[in-house]
């Protein structure tokens, strides 16, 4: 932070790949941010991207990365992302690195880049497991050496420390693997000497980008932050959008157990004493932020578990006489389909099938309070998971076919399954869920250096 310039400025994009307003980005650049940053991933959409290594919206992502990196480097700002490539695993990170290197070549950009690796060494985790330093965060399978080996892969959510190490090494572009959301934004202010309370709370406020702004997501605006010694100022970059004390305060409420406390590996962001006040031009000034350093450094672990292969298909029913019997009828469909599949050499232990009945309880399942559907038609998604893709395809297809041929009491027509267009079963590929959702405790404060490797590359 230059002396004449007593603040650090940062602009945040909510999520790369989801899109943002180009004009809002250009306007934000004209406010001279020192850093452009984005949380580029999430575990909110399940374990699929960690398991498969695939990156969501890879095409749009390259375009957006190009805009962001070219824009940031054009004014000499640093560019930082975390949880790269949706899940922040090694394959996700390498896919994003490839895009960034392509952009650098195409644009003739040169910079020092840091890659922060988040994938865990399995032998390290087995040692921590044996030392009783790993705790489960919910109803997950008991963690064993075998479960660690079977995970495809396991990442740790890094704190700010690897980002600080990368900044210290002079990196102008940082691509982080899986990271605690605010850690992606907290490095530059902490490195500039901003007190931890302000740095972390402002980072947490901007980690969803546009969320702190009004009217909100649909505007494609970007969050803009001024980090100062005893307060921060939040604003919105798109013309006509703004921040309010409530829109800024509401961010710490989101996806969090306590509205006043956010946990990161090195401590807790405490906003219980904060004052949010509107200042000129739709900006909000926040004072009173605290950061409480944790007694031990802990890292959240996320591991995907391979379950099989999914195939889906869809059909709908419109016969009013079937509505009162739909559950019993679908149970009968399963019995008939199982017999049919057996005749074809596909046995029940090779697949599971779920009917998701939209119009009845497809969205809420057993929590659905409406017990008797009033719908005049129902859409039924057939969701099959097989030990092989072919078992899943057959299971889905035969369940639909047998729905057509399974009778219900009083049936007059001869086939019950309507299709919007000819469709067999659609293969969906491998299925993953969370097998690891745990916390690992470090023995020493610097142990993070053993698990999060910081690699420096001159591009």
């Amino acid at each position: 932070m230059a002396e004449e310039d007593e603040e650090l400025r940062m602009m945040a994009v909510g999520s790369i790949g989801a899109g943002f307003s180009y004009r809002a980005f250009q306007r934000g650049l004209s406010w001279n941010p020192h850093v452009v940053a984005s949380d580029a991933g999430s575990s909110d959409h399940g374990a699929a991207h960690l398991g498969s290594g695939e990156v969501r919206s890879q095409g749009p992502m390259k375009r957006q990365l190009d805009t962001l990196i070219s824009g940031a480097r054009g004014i000499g700002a640093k560019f930082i992302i975390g949880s790269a490539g949706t899940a922040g695993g090694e394959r996700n990170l390498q896919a994003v690195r490839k895009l960034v290197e392509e952009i650098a070549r195409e644009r003739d950009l040169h910079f020092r880049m840091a890659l922060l690796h988040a994938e865990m060494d399995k032998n390290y985790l087995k040692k921590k497991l044996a030392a009783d330093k790993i705790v489960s965060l919910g109803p997950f399978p008991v963690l064993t050496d075998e479960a660690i080996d079977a995970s495809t892969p396991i990442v740790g959510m890094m704190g700010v420390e690897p980002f600080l190490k990368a900044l210290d090494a002079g990196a102008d572009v940082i691509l982080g693997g899986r990271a605690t959301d605010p850690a992606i934004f907290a490095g530059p202010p902490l490195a500039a000497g901003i007190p931890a309370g302000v740095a972390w709370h402002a980072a947490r406020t901007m980690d969803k980008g546009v969320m702190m702004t009004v009217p909100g997501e649909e505007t494609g605006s970007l969050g803009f932050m001024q980090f100062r010694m005893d307060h921060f100022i939040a604003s919105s970059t798109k013309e006509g959008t703004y921040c309010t004390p409530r829109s800024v305060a509401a961010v710490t409420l989101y996806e969090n157990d306590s509205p006043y406390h956010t946990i990161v590996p090195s401590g807790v962001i405490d906003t219980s004493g904060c004052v949010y006040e509107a200042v000129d031009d739709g900006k909000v000034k926040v004072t009173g932020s605290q950061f409480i350093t944790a007694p031990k450094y802990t890292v959240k672990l996320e591991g995907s578990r391979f379950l099989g292969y999914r195939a889906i298909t869809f059909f709908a029913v419109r016969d009013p006489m079937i509505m009162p019997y739909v559950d019993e009828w679908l149970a009968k469909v399963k019995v008939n389909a199982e017999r049919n599949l057996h005749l074809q050499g596909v046995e029940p232990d090779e697949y599971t099938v779920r009917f998701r009945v939209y119009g009845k309880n497809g969205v809420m399942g057993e929590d659905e309070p409406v017990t008797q559907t009033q719908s005049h038609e129902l859409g039924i998604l057939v969701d099959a998971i097989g030990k092989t893709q072919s078992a899943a395809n057959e299971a889905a297809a035969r369940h639909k076919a047998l729905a057509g041929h399974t009778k219900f009491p009083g049936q007059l027509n001869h086939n019950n399954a309507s299709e919007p267009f000819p469709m067999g079963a659609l293969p969906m590929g491998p299925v993953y869920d969370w097998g690891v959702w745990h916390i690992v405790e470090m023995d020493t404060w610097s142990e993070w250096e053993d698990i999060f490797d910081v690699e420096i590359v001159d591009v």
Partner: protein
Amino acid sequence: MDRLRDIANSIRGTNNGATRRSFDIMFDRTEDFQRVWSSGAINPELIAELYKLSAEDVSIYDYPPANAIKIVMPRKVVSGSPDDTDVDGKQQHAPLLDIPIP
């Protein structure tokens, strides 16, 4: 009697990680927030009944800086597992809409 949907400005439902879900109920006007919070209409027993849970599993907080009431509860099914019906918990708020507010 008013229902929650007549008074609240937004009800933001989402995951809190893979094992918990939350609803952020926000109000435009501070007096509406205070009215709903102080009425006690949103309480663990009612939420437990609406979501078929036990009351000990439900946490409810008031958050005056955002005129908000936050409800946190466990997910019965881990997010993204085969039995899940709503991976990020975006459409589980319907039972809250008609809570009567004195």
